[in-house]
């Protein structure tokens, strides 16, 4: 971590390098997401970065209905990572209606709204 970059920038810089880093508190050992300067669980400020396993499970999901001419329906979900944190994302390579709660998914760095973003695909393809 450079002196200049706060946790938000560290996370985004890593994504730009195709890497998913997760913040973990040195004091309590728990991961958190989104990245912060203070651990939301124990309020410790010594935070290290760990490479994410990428293994996760769909915690809840919805299909956002959109007219076909505007791009059609898409998935929106919450994924719980093996590390114990949840993030909003979407599962790709599968019809949005086929994404179900508890489904195992695997993270990858893709693109959303023109920026690098954590996306998921079904773990078993």
């Amino acid at each position, binding site marked *: 971590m450079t002196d200049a970059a706060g946790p*938000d920038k560290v996370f985004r810089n890593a994504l730009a390098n195709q890497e998913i880093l997760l913040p973990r508190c040195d004091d309590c050992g728990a991961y958190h*997401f*989104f990245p912060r300067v203070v651990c939301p669980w124990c309020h410790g400020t010594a935070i290290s970065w760990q490479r994410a396993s990428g293994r996760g499970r769909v*915690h*809840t*999901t*919805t*299909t*956002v*209905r959109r007219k076909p001419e505007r791009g059609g329906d*898409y998935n*929106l*979900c*919450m994924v719980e990572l093996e590390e114990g944190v*949840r*993030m*909003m*994302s*979407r599962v790709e390579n599968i019809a949005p*209606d086929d994404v179900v*709660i*508890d489904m195992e998914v695997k993270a990858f760095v893709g693109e*959303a*709204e023109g*920026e690098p*973003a954590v996306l998921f695909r079904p773990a078993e393809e």
Partner: protein
Amino acid sequence: MTGNLRGKSAIVGTGHAGFGEAHGLTAYEVMAQSALAALDDAGLKLSDVDGLFCTMMEDSMPGLMAAEYLGIEPRFLDSTMTGGSSFVNYLTSATMALEAGLCDVALIVYGSNQRTASGKLVTASRPPAYEAPYNPRYPISAYAMAAARHMYEYGTTREQLADVAVAARAWARANPEAFERGPLSREDVLAARMVGDPLTVRDCCLVTDGGGAIVMVRAERARDFPKAPVYVLGSAAESSHRQISQMKDFTVTAARKSGARAFAAAGVSPSDIQAVELYDAFTINTILFLEDLGFCAKGEGGAFVEGGRIAPGGVLPVNTNGGGLSCVHPGMYGIFTVIEAARQIRGDAPGIQLNGVDLALAHGNGGVLSSQVTAILGSQNTL
């Protein structure tokens, strides 16, 4: 609200304006008309107001804008923004300010023209940075994911969700102030356009114009006004997150804590409540809040609302004006939970007036199940 604030303040005026479509009116005009209506109800004038409690959707300094518009220079100004729950939250700050002598007449007010202005939610909020790239449609996507998780964990069904909307419509049909008064069946809700699974457009609140206002004074002078006073017996605010991705348990809201504290402050329990006014932005809200406020056990909300049990003639009167689902929902609905609860207690509810209501509950929700504020209101008999 701690126990020593029980019954220290009272609502002596309520008012509203611009319900449905307020063609040609700005949000601040609807706000001001609502304020004037509430002051008229209380037999007071704008010049009597020295405490103002207001937030609006479109500004970052809404309290200043509202005071300027109304031509008042309040001694006490609160524009704390916790979303639609803000106006229930103001019951606490208004009571504190009144009791501390920081103001003598508190005006809580809101107005919006979101239906005629844009037809969709007008908001000064920015999309959260770690959510926006995935294009959530706010607020519905958040509530859809809460509903999906509730269905998964507890077997709640789309039919049960639909029954919440059907019950709200049944109340609204008897309320001349309600915007949607046509018949609505479970089948209508299920067959309506899906917006964000599992919620159809009929699982979603209305998009209307409208404003509401409440006038409060210290309890000691509350009987000097034309209408029967409605006392604030307990109120409590809790929050658990701002962004839906930070909600720890998608099936449990902070209403569990706000409700417990409000009931403790008021010294009553859910079984004592005769009218329940909940912020029903989506059908899942009613189910979650009935559970979290203690009207039924966690996971039993679906069965609790099924088949007209919260409709007129059911076991518990919920959202007796038709709620945000069928009566009015101008961006933020919270103030209308308080107004309907107060009117049920006063005996001048616009729709179905329940018999002999002494205790009513108003519950505000803000953000994406983020802020939960519970208030318990009572008649003179409850002091």
